[in-house]
Structures are given as structure tokens and as C-alpha cells.
């Protein structure tokens, strides 16, 4: 099992190298809610360095792709697809473009809650992708059931951090502050809270829209079982202090969580079954 951790700055390369990190996840201009996108030159340089250590680089390109993005993203993919190891995508458009470009199998399908059963693997394979990331809403037993099938493609899981639970093309914070005759503070950190729940949900607005995240989760208690069935465990970094994040990454890499304090962290859906009741928009 590889640990996939998110890098924010070039200066962190050494820190992650020392940890012996398996996969370096880098934001691109096509990443959702991107706060730390790397330039093409930086991606090239970083990838060369990481490859020299026998490790891998994944790019995050998980925005929904609209008609106006097509030309730009095609050019971008034609450049990066030849040297990075993985491209994490939420919209199959990215995979289709990669296929049309004749790119290597680098796509990794991560559409949030849509990857919920083992037949998705053949869809992923058919679109020329390298792997897929399971829906974060799956229970551990569902994960084990899915991964017990020989899918032929790699399987990932978001195992730590604030996991996305809502994404809209709307600028919700800007709309709200405009309505209130106030201005959004671009430096501020915003959270939502529902009155009856003692939880805070990070909310981030970017040019492409607004994203809301669940409270922080950790899968450390289930690592042995995940190790048996998952290829990549993603450690998300949003709203986590740099040092705390480095400690988490190190702990997931070594399995030594003795220095980690996780009070209040949830285990996500790993042991939680949600209701199934049919009425969806069409």
C-alpha cells in the first residue's frame, strides 16, 4: 500500500523525501479549490527529483470540466501526461482527452460518491485509466467486498483529513456577503456549523465554485485491513497545520501513531451504514 500525501510548497520536498513518502500529490490549476497549484516547470522539476528516488508524482485535476476549459486542459494534459505517474480526475472528460492524446495509463478516477461497486473498475479500465478511488461513503465491509474482486486496476481510498461532501459551481460565500452588503475576506478561513451538531465544516470558495468538507476523519484504526486491499491511501491536507500534517504522513508511513493525537476525529463511514431510499432527481 502506498501513502499519497499532498505537497504545498517546493520547500517540502526534502521533508517528504526523508519520510520516504510513496506518492507526491500536487495541485494544478485544474484542481478543485486549489490553494497551492504548482507551475509546469515546478512539476517537471519535482517529478524528476521524485523519480530519482523511485517514488511517484500524481497531479490533482479534479475540477468539473466545462466547454470553455476543453482547449486549455487538452494542451495541459498533452504536456504533463508523458512524465507524471498519475492524474487524479473527477470528470471522465479528462480521461477521454488522455485517451485521445494516446497518453499512458495515468488517469485515476475520483468522482466523489460515484465509485460504489466493483463493476466501476471495468468502466475505469475501458477509459484507459490506471486506477480509481473508492467513494468515501463506503463502509469497510463494502470496501473489502469490492476489492475482493480482481479488478485489474489500482484502487485508492481517502483515508485521512477533511473529505469533500459538497461542490457547487455557485459562489456561495460571495453571494452571501453581497446579500449582507459585506465583502468576503480572501485570507479568512470559513466554516459552517449546523445548530444541532457539534461539528465544523470547512467551506472554500474559488473561481470555479464552492466546496464544503466533512469534519476530519482518520482510518488509522483500520490500516491493517486497508493495507490488505487498497493500493493508495490518500491523506488530505486541507486546514491542517503543516507540522501536524507531516506527523500524520509519517505515522501512516511507519504505522507508528504514538505521537499522534486524534481526539475528535471521526472514522468516516468505515463503520457507518447509511440509509437507502429511492427518490432521486433524474
Amino acid at each position, binding site marked *: 500500500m502506498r501513502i499519497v500525501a499532498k505537497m504545498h510548497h517546493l520547500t517540502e520536498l526534502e521533508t517528504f523525501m526523508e519520510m520516504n513518502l510513496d506518492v507526491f500529490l500536487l495541485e494544478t490549476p485544474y484542481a478543485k479549490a486549489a490553494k497551492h497549484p504548482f507551475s509546469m516547470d515546478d512539476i517537471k522539476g519535482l517529478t524528476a527529483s521524485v523519480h530519482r528516488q523511485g517514488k511517484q508524482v500524481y497531479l490533482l485535476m479534479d475540477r*468539473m470540466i466545462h*466547454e470553455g476549459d476543453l482547449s486549455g486542459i487538452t494542451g495541459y494534459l498533452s504536456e504533463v501526461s508523458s512524465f507524471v505517474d498519475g492524474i487524479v480526475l473527477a470528470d471522465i472528460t479528462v480521461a477521454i482527452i488522455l485517451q485521445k492524446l494516446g497518453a499512458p495509463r495515468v488517469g485515476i478516477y475520483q468522482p466523489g460518491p460515484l465509485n460504489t461497486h466493483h463493476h466501476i473498475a471495468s468502466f475505469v479500465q475501458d477509459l484507459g485509466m490506471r486506477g480509481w478511488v473508492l467513494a468515501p461513503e463506503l463502509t469497510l465491509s463494502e470496501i473489502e467486498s469490492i476489492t475482493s474482486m480482481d479488478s485489474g486496476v489500482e484502487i485508492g481510498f481517502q483515508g485521512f483529513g477533511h473529505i469533500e461532501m459538497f*461542490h457547487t459551481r455557485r459562489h456561495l460565500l460571495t453571494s452571501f456577503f453581497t446579500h449582507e452588503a459585506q465583502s468576503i475576506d480572501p485570507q479568512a478561513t470559513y466554516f459552517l456549523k449546523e445548530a444541532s451538531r457539534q461539528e465544523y465544516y470547512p467551506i472554500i470558495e474559488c473561481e470555479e465554485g464552492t466546496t464544503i468538507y466533512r469534519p476530519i476523519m482518520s482510518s488509522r484504526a483500520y490500516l491493517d485491513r486497508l493495507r490488505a486491499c487498497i493500493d493508495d491511501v490518500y491523506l488530505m491536507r486541507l486546514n491542517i497545520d503543516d507540522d501536524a500534517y507531516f506527523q500524520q504522513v509519517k505515522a501512516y508511513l511507519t504505522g507508528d501513531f504514538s505521537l499522534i493525537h486524534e481526539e475528535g476525529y471521526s472514522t468516516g463511514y468505515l463503520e457507518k451504514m447509511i440509509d437507502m431510499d*429511492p427518490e432521486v432527481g433524474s
Partner: protein
Amino acid sequence: MKPELLAPAGDLEKVRIACLYGADAVYIGGNTLSLRARSDVMEYAQIHEAVRIAHGYGKKLYLAVNIIMHEADLDGLDEQLVALAATGADAFICSDPYIIERALALTQTDIHLSTQMSVTNSIAVNEWQKRGVKRVVLARELTISEIKAIRQATTMELEVFIHGAMCSGYSGRCTLSNWMADRDANRGGCAHSCRWAYDLYQGQTKISDAFYLGATDLEASDYMDELEKIGVNSLKIEGRMKSVHYIASITSAYRQLLDDQDRVHLQPMVHQWLSRAKNRPTGVGFLGGRDHVEQIYAHTPLGKTAVFVGLVIDYDPLTRHALVEQRNHFRPGDIVEILSPKGIKGSIIIENIINSEGMPIDAARHPQETVSIPSNIVLEPYDMLRSVRDA
């Protein structure tokens, strides 16, 4: 070519009403790919009957089979798809790629890709066409110019939402309900958590207790010309769980708009007709561009401008009396507007009400009781009586 008008229905009565009030096609929910039946999804026999009703009116019937499956849902999928196809439905509205794959392999039924898959560009549209999908229901996040650009880049049938409640987030990718209410939105359990009030914090400081994610409902009557000119194939009304009055009012208004040669003059009336059935503020969504997306900042329901009071069952032209099934309280002296499949026929004053035993009564109080009322306006079965605030 004039686009199809596609209306929702949650039961057989609504299927009939949608057909009568001007839909070219109706979509309903099929229950067999779900683990629990609800009141607004149908069993095979009912689906069969719905198809028979729609086809009897020369209309099409589409089946929503758009859950995102989990491992536990997979058993029996093939048999269920074959059984659903045997009902004679004209299309399946699907989102799960595996359901699409199996439906294409096992049935001759057309596949429409649900908006739950959030298709937002022509490359994705053309990929689904290559995979055998007949139509794509485009994501509700598209502007009119984006829809136009997609139309120019594909021969795929395109369907666009024109009216009704909208997901605030990209459909199919929202798990607010899963987290907040333990209900899976992609398997029908959406708790509409986006419409709840949230506290907004800036850092540690609470700055509002009324932050809403929810958007206004969609009302795209002003875009009919453009959508038709662009070449959109189907215009969809949301609301399988809405009332027969809602379905009749909205479908009828858009039908008249689509059929009218001079839409500019009809437009103000259409806004009024649509308002008869709305209880939430409306806007034009992303059709008006990204900067025109309206949000809701308070949960103050609009006062209804019309209350559906009775459904006409029969009319005797000799006695000029109508047999009416009560749907809401009404009494002698009330003024009611008559909505018919051809539009609004006018208004009448309820002069008296006779119950099923032939006795005059001071009010029609009981749901679904059958009463008789006089009407000088000739009424027909499935005409609707509604009391209108501004009549």
C-alpha cells in the same frame, strides 16, 4: 424542430394529468432497482399501466432507474432491467455506468443519461453517445452559451431542465445528506440538507446563523426561444413528488408557450400561470450566466397564489352541473378559476354545493368527497378548480 416537453409524474393519476395538460413525454420512477418502495415509485404492473396510459395519449414514458448502486444492490439487476423493459417504457434514465452497460446489453430500450452524472461538456457527451446512450440530460450548471456550444459539437439528443427545484451542488456528487442525515442521496434518501440553515464562522467567530446553500427554483420560460433555436431536444420539468395541480399548471403553461406563435405577448401571462403553482422563489439558474445565480437567504415560503380545490370528474351539459372531487376546502360564494388542458377557461362563483346524497352543504370539507356544483362554463373531466388570491 419543436422540442419535447417532458413532465414528471409520481403516480398513475399524475401520468394522465401530465399527458392531458400538454406533456409530450412523462418520466416516472421505477422501484425495482431500489431497496425500499416509496409512495412515488411504481411496481411493474403500475409501470405497465403508466406506459399504457401515456401511449394511449400518443405520449412517451421514461423510467428513472438512476440510483448509484452499491455491492448489495447488484443482485438481480439483469432480471430487473429485463422486466422493466418488458413494460414497454420508451427509455431508461440512468446514471450508474454499469446499469447503462447492462441495459444496453439486455434490452432494446433507449438510454438517457441522467443529470446525476453532471455532464458539462461536448467531449463527455460524445463519449456517452459512442457508448450507446441516446440522450444526455445536461448538468444544471450550464449557461445558455455553454449549451449552445455543446449543441454545435454533437449530434446527441440533449435534454435541459427548464423548471423546478434544483440541486445546489453538482447532482450526484453531493453527500451532505449522507453525512448530516445518514441518508444516501444517490439511492433516493436526499434529506435536502442544502436547504437547512447553517451557522457561518469566520475563524472562531460566528458571523451568521442564517447561511443557506440552497438556490432558488428554476423557471426558464424566458429562455424558450433560445433553447428551441439552439436545438435542444427535450425540455424537462422537475418534480415527481409534486401535486397533480403543480404538474398540470406548469406543464400547461409551458405547453402554451411552446405552441404560441407570438411568445412575447404570452410571456407575462405565463409568468402568472407558473406562479399559481409555486411556493418557493424562482430564478433562471445558470441559464442567465454564472453571475446571475440566485440564492435563497431565508426560509419564508411564498404564500400560495392558488389553492387547488377540486378535480372535475364529469359534467352534464343539460343541467350544467359538474361532478367534482374535493381536494381542498371550498364553500358557496368562493370564486374559483378553471384550469383545463387547453388553458384557463375562466372563473365561476360557487353558487351552491350538493353532496352525494343530493343535499346542499355549506362547504366541501372532506378530502376526495364527490360533490356537485353548477357551472355555466362547460367543464370536462380533469379540469381543475382552484381558488385564486388575485382573481
